[in-house]
């Protein structure tokens, strides 16, 4: 953070109105001068500011809170405080634990409210007022795509938080946007073989889909994969977001002849619809001589907590889980657990990793100049971050790494032990050609 900005915020907080006035007016004229340089160049400042844009109110507030915890932890580790977390396990590592390029890392936060408008407003505040060099966070694809395109226009790097729709690195991919989280296509590709093994080739599936982009994208991917293994799709029904009571969509499942229900809902919707589906006796049902099954393509521990014991035995996929035994996961769970007293969620993990990846790229290239940082991240291969060997694919800025297939735990040993990892699907199985979902990254220089 440069001196001027510190001054601005302090003055705001202390309410003294003296020299601040001089600040704003000149900015109008100096903006042009930065053009040949790049936006928010920290220059000679001894600090650098990152922007953490997470949902603090609205349906994903809990996830946002966890993301923020992870970011604060990441800042600590970057500045060489605490136990260093994944700095100890990341390979290849350029970071030295003395901030980024020797500058102390500071941060500002904002509330996306899980609305594109609010998220962009808050990202703009970070970029325009607080002078951040990078924006990161978020817990839905709508927000990720909106903020990503803003960051492209502003020439500031965006490291997406939790976003699962194919569009983020497909149709709406951007040069300045990067996604570490997995996506709908990968979920489906990973679930396919597991579902085949667990439930057989002859299944009839019924899909309930949240009626917006993310839902459609998962629905498309799941249909493709399940039909490939021989399942029949009985029906696909779209449900309004935030319906609360899903009974009117669940009852038709009962006598549809389907024996698998695919619930393509996330967050509160998933908690509600799963709870209600179980109440309708779907889990105890026998159809076509088989046990009725429920599949939730995108799972998270926080959601499992909300649905309580209803998750038992239900399959899904997730980006990461704290119970993994690799070195990276262990290191992260250790620092997070010791700091906050409970394990991190997958949202927290992806956000932490994204912050480190950005910092590492800057350190490696020796500059905050986004074009260089982007070029470094494109095609960057790394390991030791909890997901095994990972590639940041250059063509669409999507990370490729193994995907976890999980199942709701029937006999949890503790309040956090809600999901059990069934399978770690290797990267080759979930990789797809980058032009499968065509999109245009846009230019390096903006």
């Amino acid at each position, binding site marked *: 953070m440069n001196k001027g900005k510190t001054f601005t915020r302090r003055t705001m907080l202390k309410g003294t109105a003296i020299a601040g006035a001089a600040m704003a007016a000149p900015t109008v004229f100096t903006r042009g001068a930065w053009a040949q340089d790049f936006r928010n160049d920290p220059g000679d400042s001894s600090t650098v500011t990152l922007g953490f844009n997470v949902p603090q109110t*609205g*349906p994903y*507030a*809990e996830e946002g*809170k966890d993301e923020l915890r992870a970011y604060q932890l990441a800042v600590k580790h970057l500045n060489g405080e605490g136990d260093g977390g994944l700095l100890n396990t990341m390979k290849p590592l350029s970071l030295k634990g003395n901030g980024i390029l020797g500058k102390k890392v500071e941060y500002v936060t904002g509330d996306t409210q899980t609305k594109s408008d609010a998220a962009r407003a808050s990202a703009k505040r970070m970029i325009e007022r607080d002078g951040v060099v990078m924006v990161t966070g978020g817990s839905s694809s709508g927000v990720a795509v909106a903020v990503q395109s803003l960051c492209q226009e502003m020439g500031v790097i965006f490291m997406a938080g939790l976003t699962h729709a194919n569009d983020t690195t497909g149709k709406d991919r951007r040069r300045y946007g990067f996604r570490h989280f997995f996506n709908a296509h990968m979920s489906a590709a990973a679930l396919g073989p597991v579902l085949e093994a667990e439930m057989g080739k002859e299944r009839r599936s019924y899909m309930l889909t949240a*009626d917006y982009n993310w839902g459609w994208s998962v629905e498309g991917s799941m249909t493709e994969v399940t039909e490939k293994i021989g399942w029949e799709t009985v*029906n696909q*029904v*779209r*449900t*309004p977001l*935030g319906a*609360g*009571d899903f*009974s*009117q*969509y669940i*009852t*038709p499942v*009962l*006598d549809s002849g389907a024996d698998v229900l695919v619930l393509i809902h996330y967050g*509160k919707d998933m*908690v*509600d619809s799963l*709870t*209600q589906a179980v*109440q*309708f*006796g779907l889990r*105890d049902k026998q159809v076509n001589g088989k046990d009725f099954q429920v599949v939730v393509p995108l799972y998270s521990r*926080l959601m499992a*907590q*909300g*649905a*309580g*014991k*209803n998750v038992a035995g239900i399959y899904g996929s997730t980006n990461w889980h704290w119970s993994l035994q690799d070195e990276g996961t262990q290191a992260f*769970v*250790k*620092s*997070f*657990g*010791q700091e*906050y*007293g*409970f*394990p991190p969620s997958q949202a927290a993990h992806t956000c932490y990793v994204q912050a480190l990846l950005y910092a590492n790229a800057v350190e490696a290239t020796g500059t905050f100049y986004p074009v260089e940082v982007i070029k470094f991240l494109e095609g960057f291969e790394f390991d030791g971050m909890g997901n095994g060997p990972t590639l940041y694919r250059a063509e669409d800025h999507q990370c490729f790494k193994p995907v976890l297939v999980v199942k709701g735990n029937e006999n949890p*040993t*503790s*309040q*956090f*032990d809600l999901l059990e990892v069934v399978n770690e699907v290797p990267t080759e199985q979930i990789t797809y050609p980058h032009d499968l979902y065509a999109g245009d990254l846009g230019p390096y220089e903006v």
Partner: protein
Amino acid sequence: MDALLLQLLNGLDKGAAYALIALGLTLVFGTLGVVNFAHGALFMLGAFVAVSVNELLTFSKRVKDESVTFFDAYKEQPYLEIWLGDFGSAIIDWSVPIAILAAIPIMLLIGLAMERGLIRHFYKRSHAEQILVTFGLAIVIGEIVKATFGANPIPQSAPEIVSGAAPVGALFGLSEALVYPWWRLVYLFSSLAIIGGVFAFLQFTTYGMVVRAGMADRETVGLLGINIERRFTIVFGIAAIVAGVAGVMYTPILPPDYNLGMNFLVLSFVVVVVGGMGSLPGAVAAGFLLGVVQSFASMGAVKEIVPGIDQIIIYLIAVAILLTRPRGLLGRKGVME
């Protein structure tokens, strides 16, 4: 046919929720003349009474899970179970019904406090100001709940014996496949009982008669020397109890979070207005009507003809009713027109 029957049940179930909230809303409006945007918050508070009761009952002995090293993970066993064995488990199993009992005095107190402390100062103020103050109150209540319980939904379960699906079809000699969750049936019938109780109270007690007379013509009843104000305070308490109990009973169906109230608020306003301002039977009728219509509109056959109809059907029906009947289904002339 089975499908239609199930959707009818779904609709009645949904309608019961709308009707219960709308009933209190319109009762408060009819008697106190206050547009209470915090009414949804009362529903939500009721749900969190259930959460609190459950947390109290499951206050647990924690056994550390030694396999987890970096933070404390516990296997929890409620003290009630340890002390009382199976009886303890049974108590915990029945936490939602227990919460209903607890909710009655708690919600009454909350309702009275709200009326005495805030609402009564707004009887004579403009509806706009009532909206602003009660909306503010709803936000404050929501944020307090969020700060206390977190933003994540907290699941509650119905007692074991009513948690599965009832073989409705077999009971009535229809298809075996026809099942419906026990708890939803319990919910439906309890709601009907509550609605019936409120009507009976208003219809058959002298207290209720005064309240009804007050709703019809406040000034005249006031002239009779009856202390309307005090009775109306009680009415607010009753509305709070109805909303709160509805909230408790809804928790096994919908894991509650702090936003629950806001989600129901707008719909219940639509219900009240479609029913007609100041009309209790109107609110109940509109609640069930909209619930049932919404269920039927969600059927695959209907959605194939008009895609997305289930998302707007409630509002569409509301518009149609308000345009054909100027004061909703059973509204009185001159009330909030």
